[in-house]
Each structure stands twice: as structure tokens, then as C-alpha cells.
């Protein structure tokens, strides 16, 4: 027994000796590096230019109690005269004019709120976004992002399709005068923004951030509306002797809203629960409104209600808040344009998995009472961050600081620090310790605030905060071990970023709003028995319902079969668009079906549809060479239809002189860069590849990375994206004036000397300059680890929507180009995308063509793209191939310009029989060079021969060469 222990101990000693021997070099390294103290940097946090700081700096001023209104006579817009529209004098400010200037004059120095009287003019349907300058200066950052909403209404009643499912109506814009305060666009500031104006003349300049036209009638400088607290209001009720309402509850159906502030606020259907009224176990019934579209501060919905009896009412809601786990969601209630009392400014809706019923009441569960007179009233619920707004703004600040800390840390330690080295971070970067402390304290205090709001601190946001705080605490306690916590710190930083976007988005579903008799405490929900029976009915119904037949059988005289292999939500949106825009006009019914089967199998079995949307890039030619698709050039107006797309967008779908699909989506790369980091190092945004490499080398020295996209061909899906979308090699070829295939499309040009030189240049990115091959662009860009990268332009929305903490700190420009002999720069880029085709076996080709023409039109594409964003969120931007449609989506003005600029230099590559082998061969050659350091010339020639062989074989197989005929 003793012998065993001794043996064990001796083993242990041996191992520890080996381990310590391994460590020696690292110890040695430490002593060397300790001398290297010349590079002490300092952490800088840019000055706080937010509203809260502005208020603090100007706390000596009082708020005005007067109201000054300035009409069109004080408004100057270039080349515009006053006109009378909708009973008011106004000036039209259209998209061509950059600014609208109000000249105002106030008698007293004080805080003023701004209130704008405006009428939406017909435009692209986007909300207005302005920057407001006072005497040419931006007083605080919130004034850079001021939003005014367009307003919308249901365009029709709820309709029922032939399958028995209800379809919610689309929205139409309402052109009506609105009078709105200037408020913070993100919602961190709950009340209207106040500015200090000294006595005398001032200029208030509105700068537009998009091109939407608007009628402006007047600007008021006034005080904020005073709202009394509930107990004062209650006293008033008693003084006036109001009586409680005693009748039946008045029910307002959520889905039957009156005005909505966004065209995405469509009524929805949830048939999973018996409590939601109306309900049906078998069919889709439109029965609620809200969800993720009703989540951003400032969005509102109003309902009209007819009250039959004067009196005091309490307010009940049947709602669902299963979005913010463990947190509350807030809404502000206005009745007839007025907040009835202070407490109604932030009604809280608690979390639960299911639908719930609640009465708006105080801490003691006594319902708040509202006085309503007989007649029509308008109830308005506005999204607000309510009591969590202060936490949000503090969290934003904290995340900004942490990001700054992180990228300072990376500059000292690199992305993969040596754990055995003491980086002496607190001395290397001046002030970083204080920054850590500030973050730690603010995290702790935010967590406390949240706890006081929700009563618990186990929700996801609180937990993220606690984790982040504990990591920072550990760093503060053991500064010598910071490198161990780097990854932890980073993941918590990202976590807080998502937490912030999470608590800023506060969705809510409303099924019913009830005006109640104050004594009515009954829970208006289905009991478990009712729910059980309902579930069984649903189960039985599931055997007979065809959930894949989205449209129901269309019994129009003329109809076509349409197949798509998209998600349900997308198809639902497509179907709505068809039924509202296409079928009524063309009198052609469309049977929309979701299929997962391959088109080949469908043709084989004789069940093929007439039309198929969004075939992957390589499919049209693949199918066309087998005679499965119909040549669209047979239609007379084909050339006319082509003008909708970027020039050459149809090239990948050409085969033997025919064109077998219309471009549906098209995407290409843009370059993203972090403005803050570029500014810090005085870097210029690279315009050519030489400059790009220079910037990347500089960034490498700062331990930062750049992203050059490379997608490994891992399955059929990646191949079918098309060769241009996978990596930059085709783009580089194009920029050097080379084509991928020879003119006859019988072989690749890869064994060409110039192509090999470019191949070498391309592999050098990874083999020589060490760019990452696989990386998550979004996360690294967000953290600042990868301040420059090339990515599909659709990343724009993801970053804009999800990475709010860096909003304004990044830009998107054209990809680097190649300098030509004449000194100009060639920005050409290859693209990717999909096309929509008509099947050769179809007997209704003309009808299918009508449909395709409609689907690729700007009207349909815009409608689809907008609705998809409404349903899935703004990150789900559609990369439509229709140029006009893209312009109508919400872009920042400059970014749109860059996108269009880049788009005009997109050159599509042809797809030819056997082209999947070209992609493969390039990929294989790439890996041979990057992995094993093989000679690029030999490798590329070897693999290009494989590709050529396959192309020859296919040409032979389908008798494409003249000699074969």
C-alpha cells in the first residue's frame, strides 16, 4: 500500500517537473518584456455629449411656462412658397432640399420644448428622420436622431381565404395633420427634449437624414405638458361627484385598431390558446395585435371606443408578454390625446409564457379609475421604456466604456494573450483602472435599479450584469491576471450589448382592452377545462388541415401553381402580397405551396408547378441544359422587364442564347469600417487593395484584424450561392480585366498567367498577411477587434439594428478597387443571388410570366421587403434585385449612395454546365496553397485542369459542341 503512494507521488513529481520545464521560456519572456515600457498608452473616453449631461450643465435655467408658435412666415426652405393643404398654410419640404430653417424669437431665457405641426406628404413611406441644430450647433447627441412618424390604417376589413383562414389587411397611409413634440428617438429620455434658448433671435435648423417629403406648418416653443398624480385626479373625481360605471364590460378588440404609427403593425393570429378572442381550433383567426413589431419606443396604436354611459371605469388588458424574460414591458396610455395621470405614463406588463389578464392597478391592487364621458373616445398606447429608461441609458454608457477598455486591452495583449505573462495592464494603460471601477459600480447600481422594478434579479439582463460585474471585480482584485479574464470580459461585453438591445425592444401583444366596472374583478381567461377541450379540437383539426397550402385552393378561372422553399413567415407575406396586389388586378389566382422537394423530382413525377421563385444561382442553367425550364426570351416584353435590374444581372441565368430565370435577389460585398478606430489612428479609408493591405498591416501591429470574406464550400447550399458570393477571387479577376471563362464558355481561364498572379495575390491575404479564414464578422466588428472588413451589404441592417452601442461609429463604403494603367480605379465586384423561373412543362406559361413580371416589379418587391422586415425585424433585409425597390427601403442617404455606386460596378459571372467544378477547384487550390504552402502556379494549373475536364464532359454529355452534333 505504502509503495503505491510513493509511486503515485513520484509520478506527480515527474509531471510537475515537466510542466515547470515547459514554463521556463515564458518566465524568461516576462523579464524581457518588463523592460518594454516605452509604449504606455492612455485610455480616453470621449466627452459625454448626451442629453443628461446637457441638462446637468444647464441646471440653472428654469422651464418656460409660455407658448410661442412660429408659422410658415418664420420658416425658410429654399425655393419653396407657402401653400394651403388640408386647411392649413404650410410649406412643402421635399427630398431635394437639405435643410429647413425656423427663425424664432423668444423674450426670456429658459428651457423650451419643441413641438412640430406637420403633414406627411406622399413619399417612400419611411418615417421622417431629422437632425436639429440650434444656431448651427448640435446641442446634444439625441438631437441627431429625431423621428416623426407617418400614420397608417387598415386598408380593408379582415378577409377570409378559400381555405377558411383569415388574412389580415395591409395598411394604407393616412394623410392627416399631426402635432408632435420633439422627443428622443431611442426612448431613453421619457419626456420631450428641452433646449435652452437665450432671450432674442435664434435659428432652429432641421436637417433631413432621408429624402421623405413633408409639409411643415408651424413650430411651437412651449413647456412640457403637466400631468397630475393619480391621487390629485382621484380627489377631483370625488369633488365632481363622478359615479362608477356599473354595466357590462366594454370590450375593445386589439386587432381592430384605429391608427397605427408603423406600416408593420398588422393584426395577427394566434390560435394556440382558447382565451384569445375570437378563436378557432382549426383555422387562422386574426385576433390580436402587437408582437415584435410593436417594440420600439415611440410606436403607438390607437383604438376608437364608444362609451354609452358617463362614469368612472377601470381598465383591463388581456395580453401576452413572453418576450422579455423576467422583465417588465411598459406602455404609456393617452385618452383623447392626454395622459390622464402620472401613473399612466408607464403601465407595466409583467412577463409570463402565456396570455394573461390584468387590471391596471396600484400597489395595493386597487384599480386605477378613469373618467370617461358618453360618446367616442380614442385610447392610445405608446411604447415607452418607462421606468427602465434610466437603466438603458446607463447601460449604454457602460457598454461604450467596456468596448473602449476591451479594445485598449487587445492593443496591449493581442487577441490571444500569453497567459503566463504579466502585462501590467494598469500601468501600461493610464486610467484603465478607474474605467474598470466606473463600469463595476454602474453595473452594480443598474442591477439594483432593475431589481427594484421587477422585484427579482434572476432575469437574463440582471444575470448578464451580475456576471459582467463579477468578471470586472476579478480583474480589479487580480490585475496581474487580467489576461486570463480577457475572453470572459469580451463575452460579457457582448452579452451586455445583446442585453441592451433586448431591453430596448419591448414587444407586447394585446388581445383585448376592457373598460370595466371598477368592482369587476373576474379573471377573463379560459379555464383549464375549456383550454383542454380546445387543445383536443386543435389536435383533431391537425389531421385535416393542409398547413403547407398557404393560399388555399384558388378558385379563380385562371390560376397557376407556385412553389417556394422558404420559411412559413416569408410565404405568408408573399401570399398576402399576391392576394392584395396581384390577383385583384390580373384576375389570376396563385396557389402558393411550401415545398422542400427538389424541382427535378417534381418534374420526374409529373407534379411540377408552373413557376418557382428564388432558384439558387446555379440551378437555372443546370435545369435549362436538361430542358426543364422555359426560355423567357420568348416573351416579347422580356427586354423591357430586364431594365428593372442592374445591367447584366441576368447573365448567370443565360444558357445557349436563352435566358431561363429573372433575377430575384442579388447581393454583393461592401466594406465596413469602424470610424472611431480609424479616427483614433488617423487612418484613411482604403480605396485600393494596396491601401487596404497597408491599413491592415498597421492594424495588425495594434493587434487588430481585418476581415476578407472566404466561405468554404461545405455543401450543396454554399456552392449554389454562386461563385461570386463565396470569396474575392472572381472579384479580383474582374478588377484586373479578366474573365473566369473563355469567350466560348468551353474552359476556364485559370491557367492564364495573369489569373495565376491574381490567385497568388489572393492566397497571400491568408497565407502571407495572415487574415483570418473563419471568423464571425458581426461580433468582431462590433467589439472593435476587426475594425475593417468586407461583407455582404445586407450586414448593414444586422449591425444597424443589433449593434446599437456602436451606432454612428461605423461606416459602409465601396470595396477596395484595383488601380488601372490610366490611373482610374476599377471597383468591379462579382455578385451572388437567386432567380425565378418558369417550368417548361407548364401549360400556363403566359400566366406564369404575368406573375413573374409582377413579382420582380418594384411595387411587389418593395411591399414584400417591407412586410418581411415588419414580421421578422429590420435585420431581415431582402437583397432584392430590383434597383428601384432597394431605393425605397430605409437606408441612410450616404449609405444608399455607396450601395448604388457599388451595385453599378457589379459584374455577374456566367454559369455554365459543370461550373460547380470551377468553384470547387479554386477552393481546393486555395487550401493546398494556404495549408501546405504548395506552389500556387502548379496547384492552380493542376486543379483548373480538373475543372476544364468536367466542363468538357458536360458539354459532351449535352452535345453542346458543334463537333458532337
Amino acid at each position, binding site marked *: 500500500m505504502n509503495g503505491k503512494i510513493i509511486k503515485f507521488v513520484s509520478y506527480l513529481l515527474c509531471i510537475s517537473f515537466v510542466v515547470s520545464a515547459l514554463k521556463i521560456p*515564458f518566465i524568461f519572456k516576462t523579464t524581457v518584456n518588463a523592460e518594454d515600457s516605452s509604449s504606455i498608452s492612455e485610455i480616453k473616453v470621449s466627452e459625454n455629449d448626451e442629453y443628461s449631461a446637457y441638462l446637468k450643465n444647464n441646471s440653472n435655467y428654469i422651464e418656460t411656462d409660455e407658448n410661442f408658435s412660429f408659422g410658415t412666415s418664420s420658416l425658410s426652405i429654399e425655393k419653396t412658397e407657402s401653400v394651403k393643404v388640408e386647411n392649413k398654410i404650410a410649406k412643402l419640404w421635399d427630398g431635394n432640399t437639405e435643410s429647413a430653417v425656423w427663425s424664432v424669437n423668444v423674450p426670456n431665457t429658459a428651457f423650451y420644448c419643441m413641438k412640430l405641426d406637420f403633414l406627411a406628404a406622399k413619399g417612400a413611406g419611411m418615417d421622417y428622420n431629422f437632425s436639429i441644430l440650434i444656431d448651427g450647433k448640435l446641442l446634444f447627441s439625441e438631437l441627431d436622431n429625431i423621428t416623426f412618424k407617418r400614420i397608417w390604417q387598415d386598408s380593408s376589413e379582415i378577409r377570409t381565404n378559400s381555405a377558411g383562414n383569415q388574412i389580415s389587411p395591409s395598411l394604407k397611409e393616412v394623410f392627416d395633420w399631426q402635432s408632435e413634440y420633439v422627443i428622443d428617438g431611442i426612448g431613453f429620455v421619457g419626456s420631450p427634449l428641452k433646449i435652452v434658448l437665450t432671450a432674442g433671435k435664434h435659428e432652429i435648423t432641421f436637417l433631413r437624414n432621408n429624402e421623405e417629403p413633408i409639409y411643415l406648418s408651424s413650430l411651437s416653443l412651449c413647456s412640457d405638458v403637466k400631468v397630475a398624480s393619480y391621487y390629485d385626479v382621484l380627489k377631483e373625481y370625488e369633488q365632481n361627484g363622478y359615479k362608477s360605471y356599473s354595466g357590462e364590460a366594454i370590450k375593445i378588440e386589439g386587432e381592430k385598431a384605429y391608427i397605427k404609427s408603423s406600416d408593420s403593425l398588422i393584426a395577427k393570429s394566434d390560435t394556440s390558446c382558447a382565451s384569445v378572442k375570437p378563436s378557432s381550433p382549426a383555422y387562422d383567426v386574426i385576433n390580436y395585435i402587437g408582437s415584435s413589431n410593436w417594440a420600439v419606443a415611440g410606436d403607438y396604436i390607437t383604438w376608437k371606443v364608444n362609451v354609452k354611459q358617463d362614469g368612472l371605469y377601470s381598465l383591463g388588458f388581456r395580453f401576452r408578454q413572453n418576450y422579455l424574460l423576467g422583465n417588465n414591458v411598459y406602455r404609456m396610455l393617452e385618452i383623447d390625446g392626454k395622459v390622464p395621470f402620472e401613473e399612466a405614463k408607464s403601465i407595466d406588463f409583467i412577463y409570463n409564457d402565456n396570455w394573461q389578464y390584468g387590471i391596471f392597478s396600484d400597489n395595493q391592487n386597487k384599480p386605477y379609475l378613469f373618467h370617461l364621458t358618453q360618446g367616442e373616445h380614442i385610447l392610445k398606447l405608446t411604447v415607452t421604456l418607462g421606468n427602465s429608461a434610466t437603466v438603458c441609458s446607463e447601460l449604454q454608457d457602460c457598454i461604450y466604456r467596456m468596448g473602449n477598455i476591451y479594445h485598449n486591452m487587445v492593443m496591449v495583449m493581442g*487577441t*490571444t494573450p*500569453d*497567459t*503566463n505573462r504579466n502585462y501590467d495592464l494598469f500601468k501600461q494603460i493610464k486610467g484603465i483602472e478607474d474605467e474598470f471601477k466606473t463600469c463595476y459600480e454602474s453595473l452594480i447600481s443598474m442591477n439594483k435599479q432593475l431589481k427594484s422594478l421587477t422585484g427579482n434579479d434572476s432575469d437574463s439582463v440582471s444575470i448578464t450584469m451580475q456576471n459582467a460585474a463579477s468578471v470586472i471585480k476579478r480583474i480589479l482584485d487580480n490585475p496581474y491576471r487580467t489576461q486570463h479574464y480577457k*475572453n470572459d470580459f469580451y463575452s460579457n461585453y457582448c452579452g451586455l450589448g445583446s442585453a441592451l438591445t433586448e431591453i430596448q425592444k419591448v414587444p407586447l401583444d394585446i388581445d383585448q382592452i376592457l373598460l370595466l366596472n371598477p368592482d369587476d374583478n373576474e379573471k377573463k381567461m379560459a379555464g383549464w377545462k375549456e383550454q383542454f377541450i380546445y387543445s383536443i379540437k386543435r389536435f383533431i383539426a391537425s389531421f385535416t388541415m393542409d398547413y403547407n397550402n398557404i393560399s388555399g385552393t384558388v378558385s379563380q378561372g385562371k390560376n397557376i401553381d407556385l412553389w417556394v422553399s422558404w420559411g412559413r413567415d416569408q410565404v405568408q407575406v408573399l401570399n398576402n402580397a399576391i392576394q392584395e396586389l396581384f390577383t385583384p388586378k390580373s384576375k389570376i389566382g396563385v396557389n402558393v405551396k411550401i415545398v422542400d422537394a*427538389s424541382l*427535378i*423530382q417534381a*418534374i*420526374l413525377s409529373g407534379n411540377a408547378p408552373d413557376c418557382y421563385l428564388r432558384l439558387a444561382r446555379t440551378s437555372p442553367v*443546370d*435545369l435549362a441544359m*436538361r*430542358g*426543364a425550364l422555359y426560355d423567357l426570351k420568348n416573351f416579347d416584353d422580356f427586354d423591357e422587364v430586364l431594365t428593372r435590374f442592374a445591367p447584366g444581372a441576368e447573365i448567370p441565368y443565360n444558357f445557349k442564347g436563352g435566358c431561363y430565370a429573372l433575377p430575384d435577389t442579388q447581393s454583393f460585398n461592401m466594406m465596413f469600417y469602424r470610424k472611431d478606430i480609424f479616427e483614433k489612428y488617423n487612418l484613411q479609408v482604403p480605396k485600393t487593395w494596396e491601401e487596404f493591405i497597408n491599413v491592415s498591416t498597421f492594424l495588425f501591429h495594434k493587434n487588430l484584424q481585418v476581415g476578407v470574406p472566404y466561405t*468554404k*464550400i*461545405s*455543401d*450543396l447550399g*454554399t*456552392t449554389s450561392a454562386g461563385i461570386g458570393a463565396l470569396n474575392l477571387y472572381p472579384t479580383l479577376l474582374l478588377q484586373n480585366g479578366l474573365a473566369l471563362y473563355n469567350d466560348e464558355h468551353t474552359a476556364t481561364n485559370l491557367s492564364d498567367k495573369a489569373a495565376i498572379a491574381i490567385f497568388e495575390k489572393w492566397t497571400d491575404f491568408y497565407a502571407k498577411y*495572415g487574415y*483570418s*479564414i*473563419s*471568423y*464571425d464578422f458581426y461580433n468582431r466588428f462590433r467589439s472593435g477587434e476587426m475594425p475593417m472588413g468586407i461583407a455582404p451589404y445586407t450586414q448593414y441592417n444586422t449591425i444597424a439594428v443589433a449593434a446599437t452601442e456602436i451606432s454612428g461609429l461605423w461606416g459602409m463604403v465601396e470595396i477596395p478597387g484595383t488601380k488601372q494603367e490610366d490611373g482610374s480605379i476599377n471597383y468591379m465586384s462579382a455578385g451572388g443571388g437567386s432567380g425565378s423561373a418558369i417550368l417548361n412543362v407548364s401549360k400556363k406559361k403566359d400566366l406564369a410570366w404575368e406573375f413573374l413580371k409582377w413579382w420582380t416589379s418594384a411595387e411587389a418587391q418593395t411591399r414584400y421587403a417591407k412586410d418581411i422586415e415588419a414580421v421578422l425585424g429590420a435585420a431581415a433585409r431582402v437583397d432584392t434585385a430590383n434597383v428601384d425597390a432597394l431605393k425605397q427601403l430605409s437606408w441612410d442617404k450616404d449609405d444608399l449612395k455607396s450601395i448604388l455606386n457599388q451595385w453599378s460596378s457589379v459584374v455577374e459571372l456566367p454559369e455554365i454546365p459543370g461550373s*460547380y467544378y470551377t468553384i*470547387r477547384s479554386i*477552393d*481546393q487550390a486555395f*487550401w*493546398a496553397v*494556404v*495549408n*501546405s504552402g504548395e506552389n500556387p502556379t502548379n496547384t492552380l494549373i493542376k486543379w483548373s485542369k480538373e475543372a476544364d475536364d468536367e466542363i468538357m464532359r*458536360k458539354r459532351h*454529355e449535352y452535345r453542346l459542341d458543334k463537333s458532337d452534333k
Partner: protein
Amino acid sequence: MHRFKRQRNAYSLIKADKKPAIVMLLPFAVLFCLFTVLPVASSVVLSFFHYDMISMPSFVGLDNYIRMIVADNVFTISLKNTLVFAVVTGPLGFFLSFLLAWMVNEFNGYMRAVLSFLFYSPSLAGNAYFIWSILFSGDSYGYINSILLNYGFIQEPIQWLNNAQYTMTICIIVQLWMSMGISFLANIAGLQNASPQLYEAGAIDGIRNRWQELWYITLPSMKSILLFSCVMQIQSSFSASAVMTTLTGVPSVEYSTHTIVTHLSDVGSVRYEMGYAAAISVFLFALMAVSRLIIGKIINFTGK
């Protein structure tokens, strides 16, 4: 009288008795023919044709087979890969799953149930091997890269799944991990079927240790189960493809993990060359049949 008649016509009676047997067999036989025999036969026929699923098949004789053996160098690579893969994972996987089953079988009832569930669960979960792609991710934040980087073993992330040096080894490891599936379960069942009386008798007859017990009693008494789990193992080794395609993609770097089945689906679903794909599948079928014969012979050795 009745009895007499039955005796006399014994032969014809047996013949008559077959009728209900055939009727009872019929549902299965029809389905089996329709969904197994017919496709196999049709793929043999199809292998002599050129067929792209849309146009009519045209007869090409032995062209597909000639191309397979002479002209298609990717097929040669895939054959080599399949053989390497099968030779390593087949016996090793079988051996490991038997060893594990033998060890787990030593536990008593409740513990054994829990353990066999735990070991079987990767197979239950379907594509559980997907997690290996996160472990071996080529990103510097991939688990293994991240650990190696953190401890200073490597300076740059290794492209585990994109480097022909590593891909096959990784796939073999994952396949071995996966082989704790059906053959493990079968082995446990087989071990429990071995009659305790045989062990007692063996003890009396002079079995001296557990190895002898295993070799002379346990293994021979579960021969049929061994054969079953062996066949399963062969089938899964030769037709392995999902693991490779999930981890290393299609095509893998330098076709380093391209197996016959991968090639088959590549030819069939990317190039729509159904005739050629059928020829490959016929070849694979023959390959499996031959190895099944060899293994049957080997298993007969147990206990001798």
C-alpha cells in the same frame, strides 16, 4: 379416419399448410420486394444507362464502370478513404463497443440501465456529432484552438477541418465515438442472454479465469448477436458519409474525407448522373457483401 387420412397425405398436407404461411408472409414480402429488392435491381439495371432524371435513359453498356475504375480519380480517392476508414473504425469500433458492453454488463441492474442509456444517447440524439464541429472549429474561438492558444501550444488557430492532415483522423475519432450505438446495445443484450448455467458448468469443467470464460462461453453463446453487430458495424463504416460531410463539408479539402457514399451523392445530386451513381452503388454493394463473408468466417473462430 380423419387421422389416418392426414397421415397418409402427410406430404401434401405440409404443402397445403404452406398456403396460409405464404399469405401471412405476403404483406412483408410485397413491401420488401417493392422497396428493397426492386430498387436494388433497378439500380443494377440503371448502372448500364446514362440517366439525368429528366431526359430518357440511354444505354451505354459498361461505360459507367469503365469510367469509375479508369477515368474518375476522385472515385479512386474515395475508395481509398472508405477502405482506410472502414478498416480502422470497423474492427476498432466493434471491439470498443463490445468492450464497453462487457464492462457495463458487470454493473447491477439499475446502474447498468443508466449507463447503457448514457452511452447510447449520442446515437439517440441523431446528429449529435455536430458538436465536434464546434470543438474543432478553425476560428481562434473554437474550443480546441482556444485551449491550445491559451496554453501557448500554438500561435495561430489550426484549420482542423480544412487541413487534409487532420480531417481523416478527426472523422475516425468521431465515428468511433458514434459507434457506441446500436452494436453496443446489441452486445449488451447478447451478454445478458448468455445462460448462467453455462458459466456454472464451465466453472466445474475447469475454466480458470475471466478471459477463458469470455472466449469459451460468452462469445460462442452470443455468436449471432456478434454477427449482427458486426454487420451493422460494416454497414455503418462503409456507408459513412454524414459524419464527414457535416464536419469537413463536400467536397472536403483535397477530397481527404471523400468516401464512396459522399461521391455517390455528389454524382447523383449535384451532377444528376444517375446511371453513374447507380454503378458506384452497385460497386459499394459488392464491397459490403464480400466483407460480410470474410467477417462471418472470422466470427466462427470464437471459442476454437
